[in-house]
């Protein structure tokens, strides 16, 4: 009887120690997940921030200013545009005449 009790006592002790270990592991994994989630969120907001910054660099205001001042471009008019039709033939602006 006492031998059985002793074995059971050993089993209980082993299980208790194992529980402690499992809990410890679970907690460190939770910490890891939390850290990773925070990192993901940080990268997401960083991505948003960079998106906005990229857009700020490509606003029509800035594009037009650079095109005019640095590249000496001018606004397009129908007079200097060739319109291509779906068939593939290039149609000049004067192809269709309004009555």
């Amino acid at each position, binding site marked *: 009887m006492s031998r059985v009790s002793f074995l059971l006592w050993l089993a209980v002790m082993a299980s208790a120690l194992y529980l402690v270990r499992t809990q410890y592991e679970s907690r460190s994994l939770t910490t890891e997940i939390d*850290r990773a989630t925070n990192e993901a969120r940080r990268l997401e907001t960083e991505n*948003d921030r960079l998106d*906005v910054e990229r857009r700020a660099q490509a606003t*029509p205001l800035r594009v037009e200013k650079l095109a005019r001042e640095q590249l000496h471009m001018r606004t397009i008019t*129908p007079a200097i*545009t*060739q*319109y291509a039709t779906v068939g593939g033939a290039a149609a000049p602006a004067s192809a269709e005449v*309004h009555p």
Partner: protein
Amino acid sequence: MSHRSVQYTSSPLLASKTPIWRSQFIVAVIAAGFLGLVARAAYVQVIDNAFFKRQGTVRFVRTLDLPANRGRILDRNGNILASSVPVPSIWANPEDIERDPVKLKALAKLLGMTSAELDKKLQDEDKIFVWLKRQVDESVAKDIADLKIKGVYDRKEYKRIYPEGESVAHVVGFTNVENLGQEGVELTFNKDLGGKAGSRRVIKDRFGHVVEDIGEMVPPLDGQDLQLSIDSKVQYFAYEKIKESVIANKAAAGSVVVLDVKTGEVLALVNYPSYSPGKRGNLSGAQLRNRALTDTFEPGSTMKPLVVGLALEKGIVKPETMIQTAPGKLQMGTATITDSHPHGLLSVNEVIQKSSNVGTVKIAMQMQPHDMWEIFTQMGLGQKPQVPFPGAVSGKVRAYKTWRPIEQATMSYGYGLSASLFQLAQAYTVFAHDGEMIPMSLVKTNQSQVTGARVFSSEHAAAMRHMLHMVTIPGGTAPKAQTMGYSVGGKTGTAHKVEGKGYASKKYRGFFVGIAPIDNPRIVVAVMVDEPTNGAYFGGDVAAPVFSQTVQQTLRMMGVQPDMAVKPQVVTQVEKESF
């Protein structure tokens, strides 16, 4: 007396006769002590454990807020008009701040305030939290952190960034420091954009790491992105053009509305003067006003096509019907209606082309007030526009039962009622959309064609477009509305501004509402220039050129092929020069 005694030892030195009750007493005391411990343990563990549980919780359980991201505002092509980015905000704990005068002076300088202002914020030592400055630049926060002042901290907050700046300011609006919409779309769609913050309860260890989740997590609900119908390129271009016109004409303000007539989407809605939503230091009311929607004025001659359209619909006149407008005057009771230039015999087409008041009144007086009122209402006048905008006004069209004949007459050429520029643009979509009134939308609809309520027959809408086209050809009032490559049509308007109870003699509003291309309309553009003071003030002079340029660029960006002959200036081949 006999005493019971115990002999504890045989040593004579220790041989003392102790009374038995003493040992019993000791045993009892110790037993009582243990009982006390058991009772206490039972009390702590079973009876009153809530208090201790709470104390334990306070020491290691934390509730974390999970902030929701505010949704972005995008234009129709997915370009960002507004987005939230995290920025540092500086706060301090006045209770335990390190009060080193040198460091505090440096801090005040970095925060852009005087030392006295900073001292005032920090003077209440009972407080444990005070904002020093919210939403500072990343570099400033870093410099402050480098000062290493005890009791000064930073915290991440979301700040709204508006990359497009002034040109879309009135449409997008702005949020306050708490991320709540205050103006424009930010205010109207605040609920959808805002989202809902979540929370989670966790156990933290002594390093501050989260080690366990307890209870259920409430996930944050991020705000929805909102895609507007606005095209940021059209918007920018229209803004630049109205700005140029306002400056050139020394005007007080100007507005442009561009509508897609196939889908009812608002492609651009601009006002000048504007403001930069990111820097709202010294804003004036004039800059903040979304004039295209909030300012109403008497629409003047732009009302004439509505009246003539109704006359065609009722079979009262035909486009070729001749009307005598000589001698350029018409007496109605005590009032005289005059044309700025007398014209003589005009066809209905020419009444619109030359913008004859007398001709319009002669047509209008053959109609019932009820019919006129109904057509105005059907075309959106006196009604709040469906675009959900803070402060959008409905203008004024009085009930027809109260109209006196002279009022019916003046209303036919646009006096005695009021409308906003947006409403005028909306009314003209009826001519452009084949006689149908379609719903307007500020949000991208992803539809290629919508149907609306029929106001005019298709045939009469086409006849009206032809008249509007005549306005823009030589002989009309607005040849400056013409644009290279595209046929246009529209109507000018010039109104005296109302001041107090009467009309201001030298204050005008010039406007132009038009359609392009005229045979297969794609857009309606309405332009208004308020109080031009540089000589020209007619709508045909101050507003029509802005219309012309805006139409040209908008149709080009929409990929609409020109429908009019253009003398090509394309250099296709260059002959080699010979020596």
